[in-house]
């Protein structure tokens, strides 16, 4: 069969399925990135302001997750989660294997990994915030939570934009690993199509093109965002 037909939107084409899968890729990456923001934010806070054991914990978390293959983390969540759920189900009298939802597992694993990188971004951005800005906030009588919400967080996000852009790209690309759990994102869909048509090359090429499209749009988006935030920072 011709590649155009294979990748098209006709009855024999996989175009629609691939586009749906691309939406899943973006979804799992977004969820992973959001989860990573929570993990990363907490870890950054612990490293900046936490007590010694908290700092130690956060240091361990970022070092560990940046030194261990992401695929292992995904296996841990997928198999570990399944084992835990199965055990739980058995305790309630059920029998057999209970699988965890692939989307949630993938997002959680991506979140844990990207959180380690996001923590570094937030911490670096916080350190870049000028002391004087916080002193000014205190001087007008802001409480710590108010100062954090009105002054620190907005500035950290602005300084962090380039770094967060890199982490987002990382999450997008790492999301391909979630295919091993059976989540039908771009790569898994391409595998399915390649297996069913015995035409792996056009499908993996299409997968590469889809990822390239998403990462390129993201690069552009973050570039625009960076320009805007920079303008804001300069205006001060």
């Amino acid at each position, binding site marked *: 069969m011709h590649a155009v037909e294979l990748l098209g939107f006709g009855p024999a084409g996989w175009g629609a399925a691939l586009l749906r899968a691309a939406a899943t890729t973006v979804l799992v990456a977004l969820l992973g990135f959001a989860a990573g923001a929570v993990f990363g934010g907490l870890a950054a806070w612990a490293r900046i302001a936490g007590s010694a054991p908290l700092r130690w914990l956060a240091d361990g978390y970022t070092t560990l997750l940046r030194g*261990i*293959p992401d695929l292992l983390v995904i296996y841990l969540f997928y198999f570990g989660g399944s084992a835990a759920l199965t055990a739980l189900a058995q305790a309630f009298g059920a029998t057999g294997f209970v699988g965890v939802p692939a989307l949630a597992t993938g997002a959680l694993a991506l979140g844990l990994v990207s959180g380690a990188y996001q923590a570094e971004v937030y911490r670096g951005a916080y350190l870049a915030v000028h002391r004087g800005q916080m002193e000014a906030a205190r001087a007008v009588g802001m409480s710590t939570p108010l100062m954090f919400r009105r002054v620190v967080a907005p500035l950290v996000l602005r300084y962090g934009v380039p770094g967060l852009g890199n982490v987002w790209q990382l999450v997008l690309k790492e999301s*391909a690993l979630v295919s091993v759990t059976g989540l039908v994102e771009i*790569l898994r869909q391409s595998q399915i199509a*390649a297996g069913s048509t015995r*035409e*792996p*090359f056009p499908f*993996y090429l299409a997968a590469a093109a889809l990822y390239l499209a998403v990462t390129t749009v993201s690069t552009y988006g973050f570039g625009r965002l960076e320009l805007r935030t920079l303008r804001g920072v300069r205006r001060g």
Partner: protein
Amino acid sequence: MDFAFLGSTWLTLLSGLPLTLKLASGAVSCGFVLALAVAAMRVSGSRLLSGPAQAFVFAFRGTPLLVQVFLIYYGLGQFRPFLQEWGLWPFFRDAYWCALLALSLNTAAYSGEIIRGAIGSVPAGQIEAARACGMGRLTAARRIIGPIALRQALPAYSNEIISMVKATSLASIITLMEVTFIAQKLISQTFRAVEIFVCAGSIYLLVNVAITRAVWALEWWLSPHLRARPREPAALEAAHA
């Protein structure tokens, strides 16, 4: 905690370490040579050279490594008759070589940009001084730009090496029996995901800590000019006084 299980798991996983290290070191070495070429093409100033290099970097940095692995291992398999005709089939049939190729190309794209950035950071004045005393391009690259850029690139490059060690785990998906492959097999046999994760993770972590330390040492050794001023011997100071 079941220490006997942890111990035996750790030893089983360790049997995959040689392949992990072989893949990582192979990819980093081949990738470095390719990266030098990519960086040289990008700073050449010739559009004919920098264009293809830029496209290469764009394609390999914009797509997941696993897609690259699949494209090379499964995708190119579709062209078996053609590859056989050219005598390339034994190479592309072998998962090991395909993984090595994908990892090398991938790290070449990232490292090429690191090297390009490092070259760009060499102060223009120092390059000018090299030209002013009559150095040719090659001599200036070898004596001035190279050493300064190398020192500059090291921190980012050590991160790239660690990325490669982690990336070798993807080879498990195309059936190579390195550490992650064995870990995955053990998990699906025993369902003791946490213990096995801890064992496998500790192996990777140890390797990466060793690499980090080695690069630190190299960095220290390569940058006497950035360290604190050497203490002058007291005798010398007295002689000058």
